[in-house]
């Protein structure tokens, strides 16, 4: 049953369709089950309103500040040539792989009440800095999203044909005119999408809000769901909050689909056009780059130094066990992501039109659905039949896999589409079908992107501190949870040691999967 080039075989369609259906069930069945939990209580308590307000305020601030800082940063990167520029641009991708809890530890070391800047401030007779609350949550979100927006903007700048800058120079335009006539139209197209993406990511952010907020002044809806389940055991209340959260997310997705969409993941950035319009004085641009890089690198430096000291003093009991659990969990969940993404991408890549839109919409919906909403729903569904605690790691792994799926799809769909376009007809004419065709005509072409997608999923799952906080059996911990418990007991040295191990393992997993993909790509 071979279809023509550009058509999908029945097998691919069946497998892809089944996997897609499974993902949709995973996303929506929990929400349906939560509807059933809703009792007669009022929809909003005063605490809930405060949580919604705080969630919106922090998302708005985080997105605004990330975008506002990213514009001068990206602009400086795209009009100045300096040593290490490529390294800086490569580093912009790093926070994506960074476990949130590790970043929080680093941020505490720099901005915390006994951190670097507090000490400097105290030495100068100033007050201690207070990182807990709105300020800390926004700070951490900017730390994660400034690089993301900067990357998107660098891509935007790169998409401007270099000829336009040359023409502007010929016409004698200054920086101001170039900004107004060339750069501003690009920013106007890219920024709304970038803003909404950051807004959406911050809306459902959990670990940051739990570690740096959580007090009555700074509770997000996601943290409120966690607290309701963990301390009050009020399923009905949790379900209402989960739906409020979903409603907020859906509203943002609708807005995002209505406005420009952020461009796809790009690798191989860094081409710098000749810029005649850059002001002669490079000082301001240099300051912007130095401050931004310092802001991003300093916390990581602290984690590495303190972590080395912590490990040197002797690792804590349970560290290696937690590390083992996490590696197994991340590896398995990454493979599930890769297989599911491959199955769905096979289906989508064969669709003639609208496939970009479809993937984009599905991805955004998955980003808007918080893991806690799913976790809560899965819990409610499972409870009558099995002990949900015994299945905590499995549930966590499946949810982690689903959360990485949008990224896997974005990477694999273009790769599969290209493979099909280039070699599809040849494979058809040779009568290659099924596994043999996949093994010899498809896999070699997509091995690199497949390795990249799997590595990314592994790193994301490795660093995840989400549903596991609620459902972990008392004697089982993933590495991020183990680290969070140490921080909760204020044992910062041991936590720093665990952070270094977590950071190392996340990067190692990403690197190993990338290598598996890369090496095979070379062999073929």
């Amino acid at each position, binding site marked *: 049953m071979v279809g023509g080039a550009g058509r999908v075989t029945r097998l691919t369609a069946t497998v892809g369709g089944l996997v897609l259906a499974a993902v949709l069930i995973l996303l929506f069945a929990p929400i349906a089950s939560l509807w059933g939990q809703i009792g007669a209580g009022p929809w909003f308590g*005063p605490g809930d309103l405060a949580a919604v307000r705080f969630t919106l305020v922090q998302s708005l601030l985080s997105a605004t500040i990330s975008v506002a800082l990213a514009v001068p940063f990206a602009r400086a990167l795209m009009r100045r040539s300096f040593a290490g520029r490529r390294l800086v641009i490569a580093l912009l991708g790093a926070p994506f792989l960074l476990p949130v809890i590790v970043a929080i530890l680093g941020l505490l070391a720099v901005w915390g009440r006994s951190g670097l800047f507090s000490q400097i401030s105290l030495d100068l007779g100033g007050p201690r800095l207070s990182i807990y609350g709105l300020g800390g949550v926004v700070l951490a979100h900017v730390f994660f999203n400034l690089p993301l927006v900067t990357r998107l903007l660098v891509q935007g700048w790169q998409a401007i044909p270099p000829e336009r800058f040359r023409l502007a120079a010929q016409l004698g335009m200054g920086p101001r005119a170039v900004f107004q006539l060339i750069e501003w139209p690009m920013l106007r197209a890219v920024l709304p999408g970038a803003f909404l993406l950051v807004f959406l990511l911050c809306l459902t952010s959990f670990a940051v809000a739990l570690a740096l907020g959580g007090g009555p002044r700074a509770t997000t809806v996601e943290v409120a769901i966690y607290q309701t389940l963990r301390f009050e055991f009020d399923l009905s209340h949790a379900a209402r909050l989960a739906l409020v959260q979903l409603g907020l997310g859906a509203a943002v997705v609708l807005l995002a689909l209505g406005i420009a969409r952020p461009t796809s993941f790009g690798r191989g950035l860094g081409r710098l056009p000749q810029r005649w319009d850059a002001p002669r004085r490079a000082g301001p641009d240099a300051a912007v780059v130095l401050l931004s890089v310092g802001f991003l690198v300093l916390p990581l430096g602290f984690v590495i130094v303190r972590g080395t000291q912590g490990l040197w003093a002797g690792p804590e009991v349970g560290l290696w066990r937690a590390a083992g659990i996490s590696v197994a969990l991340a590896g398995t969940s990454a493979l599930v992501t890769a297989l599911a993404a491959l199955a769905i991408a096979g289906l989508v890549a064969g669709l003639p039109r609208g496939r970009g839109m479809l993937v984009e919409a599905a991805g955004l919906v998955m980003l808007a659905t918080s893991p806690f909403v799913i976790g809560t729903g899965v819990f409610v569904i499972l409870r009558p039949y099995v002990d949900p605690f015994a299945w905590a790691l499995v549930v966590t792994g499946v949810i982690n896999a689903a959360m990485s799926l949008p990224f896997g799809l974005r990477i694999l769909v273009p790769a599969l589409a290209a493979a099909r376009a280039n070699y599809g007809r040849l494979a058809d004419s040779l009568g290659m079908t099924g596994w043999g065709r996949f093994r010899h005509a498809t896999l070699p072409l997509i091995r690199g992107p497949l390795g990249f997608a799997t590595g990314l999923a592994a790193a994301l799952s490795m660093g995840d501190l989400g549903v596991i906080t609620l459902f972990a059996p008392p*004697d089982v911990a993933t590495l991020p949870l183990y680290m969070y418990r140490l921080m*909760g007991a204020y044992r910062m040295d041991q936590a720093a040691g665990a952070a270094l191990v977590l950071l190392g393992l996340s990067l190692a997993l990403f690197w190993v999967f990338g290598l598996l993909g890369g090496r095979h790509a070379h062999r073929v």
Partner: protein
Amino acid sequence: MIRPLLTAAVLSFGATLAQAQNPILTVYTYDSFVTEWGPGPAVETAFEEVCACDLRFVGAGDGAALLARLQLEGTRTEADVVLGLDTTLTTQAADTGLFAPHGLTPQGLTLPVTWEDTTFLPYDWGHFAFVYDNTKLTDVPDSFEALLAAEDLSIVIQDPRSSTPGLGLLMWVKAVYEDRAPEVWAALAPRIVTVTKGWSEAYGMFLEGEADMVLSYTTSPAYHLIAEEDPTKSAANFAEGHYMQIEVAGMLAGTDQPDLAQRFLEFMLSPAFQTVIPTTNWMYPAALPPADLPAGFDQMIQPARSLLIPADEIPALKDAALAEWLAALAG
């Protein structure tokens, strides 16, 4: 060489059999109870010597989280006994229907109050207090009023939703000030450095010098005095009186080891358990004469009044008090 190996094999087989025959008693408790420096290890050894059983402590979260965990697991829970709730939670816990009456008549209780609860039994108690470093803080408030007036004093407290000391402070303020509680929280709010999720985080911050005072217990200085020979920590004695915490344990209705669970509760009030408490949990044992307390405990402050809101009045009071607290601190 074959004979010793065989003997070893038979012996280890015998040991496995003996273990398999020993019933397992699972006790859910808070995390700090089971740490190596907590009461858990010593209690486990002492009980296993007399019970012909395998006692398993499981750290399942603190305070309200411990109870929520139990509700989450419902009748599926493996727990036979829960140890570590306090009187601000007992009524709510009893209402879940998950607990069975203890069926015991406790003898020799040394609590400052009489005990009539038929579901839960106390194992230790203490008074909440603000602890400070007596080498740094000179102008120590001697009452709640003085604390409210000392506007430059920073404190760190725990979240009443997740921590029993945090909930204790909520009740303390309510017991002293009743309807004026919202004003008190409004006055305290600017001086609260942060609200932590649990006791150890708050106490750690205090030890790092991030606040002048921390909400803890009158007996906390005993830890520094006895375990670290460090006399620099003291608890402030408040004229209005100090709110009490009574920590309790209860057995579950669904336990498959009801006799063993009851024996554990009995053991809990015997000297073998009670003498472990002062220097591991740093609280007053519930059934041990004051004369038997270790040296150092005599230096702890003695509150002029013990405050305790009866357990059955707590649920009606708690939600309103929590709403007031949230309103004052969320602003």
